């Protein structure tokens, strides 16, 4: 029998954020062994983030793969002033979003809602219909007219990062970030299913 999946991705005690920062700095400097260690250690964390966005495990794994490739190729764009894990969250959430978009584009449209977005057909898409789907669709809609709110809203409501981490990540004062998220939520609310 295959070993239990819940332990397979965690071959050792999880590294601390300090260790991850250190590996990431060395990886940036061209240390390929450090990059390997880093990517190996990040997998469970990244997969978790992707699962938060894409409930179907196959989709989350696709997104995770994409996220790790993005980490490997774009690690130079981490500035090193914030936590590496904060930068990583943004990369992972964006990868999950782009995986979601791709899945949606590949799916057979069955109906078109009032915003003109084709909903994926659950019979042909592995993405399971759920609240996250609504939220992601709402993000896409908001991005049309108010792209400045999307990143913050995603980090807060899809992944659940604390406000101060988000402020550090997007490089804006805490008060501004809170206001942006508040605005973003107001925009998103009517787009969510159930119109709660």
């Amino acid at each position, binding site marked *: *029998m*295959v*070993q*239990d*999946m*819940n*332990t*397979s991705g965690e*071959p*050792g*005690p999880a590294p601390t954020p300090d260790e991850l920062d250190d590996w990431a700095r060395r990886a940036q400097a061209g240390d*390929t062994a450090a*990059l*390997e*260690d880093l*990517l*190996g250690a990040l*997998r469970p964390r*990244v*997969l978790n983030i992707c699962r938060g966005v894409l409930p179907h*495990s*196959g*989709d*989350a*794994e*696709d997104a*995770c*793969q*994409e996220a*790790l*490739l993005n980490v*490997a*190729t774009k690690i130079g764009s981490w500035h090193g002033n914030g936590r590496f894990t904060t930068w990583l969250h943004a990369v992972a959430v964006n990868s999950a979003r782009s*995986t979601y978009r*791709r*899945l949606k584009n*590949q799916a057979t449209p069955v109906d078109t809602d009032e915003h003109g977005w084709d909903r994926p057909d659950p019979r042909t*898409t*592995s993405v399971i219909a759920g609240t996250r789907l609504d939220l992601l669709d709402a993000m896409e809609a908001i991005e049309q007219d108010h792209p400045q709110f999307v990143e913050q809203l995603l980090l807060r409501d899809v992944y659940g990062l604390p406000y101060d981490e988000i402020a550090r990540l997007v490089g804006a004062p805490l008060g501004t970030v809170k206001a942006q998220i508040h605005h973003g939520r107001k925009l998103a609310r009517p787009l969510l299913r159930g119109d709660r």
Partner: protein
Amino acid sequence: MTAPGVAGLALAVLATTTVVGCSSEAGPALLPDAEVVESGVPVSDRREPDLELALSEPRKDSVYPQVGDPGVDALHYALDLTWQPGRRLLKGRSRMVFRATRPAPRFQLDLARPLEVTRARLDGRPVRTTRRGKNLVVHAPVTADQRLTLTVAYAGRARPVPAPTTRSDFSTTGFTVTRTGEVWTMQEPFGAYTWYPVNDQPSDKALYDVTVHAPARWTGISNGRLVEHEPGRRRTTTRWQLDEPASSYLMTLAIGDYGWSSGRTKSGLRIDYWVPRGKPTAKKKVRAAARAMDWAEARLGPYPFSSLGLVVTESDSAMETQTMVTLGDTGYVLSPAVILHELVHQWYGDQVSPDDWRDVWLNEGMTMLMQWLYEADTGGVPIKATVRRARQLDQLLRDEHGPPGDYDAGEFGETNIYWSPALMWNELRLELGDKRFFEIARSWLAAHDNQSVNRDDIVAHWEAETGRELYAFFDAWIMGRRTPARGVPSS
């Protein structure tokens, strides 16, 4: 629903550095596809089973003594199963040829309660049976080495039984019905008795003929070669023959709307892929088996059986059912590394099996090491890094679940039976070098083909082959409460 673009990117990145893929799929996905045929399931001829292959020395299990009867040595099971998904009803007829191993006034098989016995005959004559829990007691005196035939007709709403485990990917074993009436089974360490009367302990290997009557358009799948395939307007009948003996936990049954395709190994073996229709991603992913088999055969020698297939089900786990691997439908389970794992089990686990559940590490340790090596060879984590991390975790596993050869009966299949013995085998691999290590790994299989074995057998084999005293080394890894030091002590 996988993205070709990502695979292309993976290729570009892999060329410059090693990237850890989420399902290790980057490696084999880049290799050329095996031949895929879309129609015309090949049907082969049924052969007369050679019962002598199935002679065993059954024993009482030390971990799960409640299952099995050491007085019974089953040689051949012929099962005829009819599945009615609408009524959730399984009707079965079983004909078991067996050898009594000792004189006794009665003997017993395992058969779960929901299945009612409607008729039982011993050598053609009616025989009295009683039920005690899951025990089907047959009241007939037998003598040592007497060969008899027991036929049982039974029916009921078959369902799984609780599994003795704390794992996250399964909590029951045996006959499992999906919401839409399809059937799948996984039954390690026991649970075959949820769908047929069986001596459900691994030391009793037996041959099988399994006939399945499925609803029209559906297909019943089991172990071995397909020897009869009759799609009909009302029902589809398939008949399978397993011509080398298997422990009951290595049997499989899957019934659903299956499509067939196939691939081929470099050595010329056809691999049958049975995937539910309408699952293109799963259908694509299982094809990794062909290249994984090439890798395994290069190290373990020619595949030991006459046929090979993979069947995809709704499970969350994966099981090395003999000649017909049973896979769940998750990204993890359908990754090339997990497929390779179940294929390696065809040698380590199926061709040679443990005779007692305390030695399940015999299956998982070598297989886990092979999986690590395969992952390293196909662009995953280098073996040194994997071993380093596993070694860091070994003590935690021993503290949590016990030593791999002395685990808690309620914690079957935890990671201690995988990683700790894999680390042990890796020490021998480093000590002897890959070439010698795999020579001995192969000679072990050849020496115990189709047998059930235990820890004493394997220590004796490695001591004889290496000329070294290895008992203390094996004992420290398998029974020790602490992670042993690195290296293989010279005696």
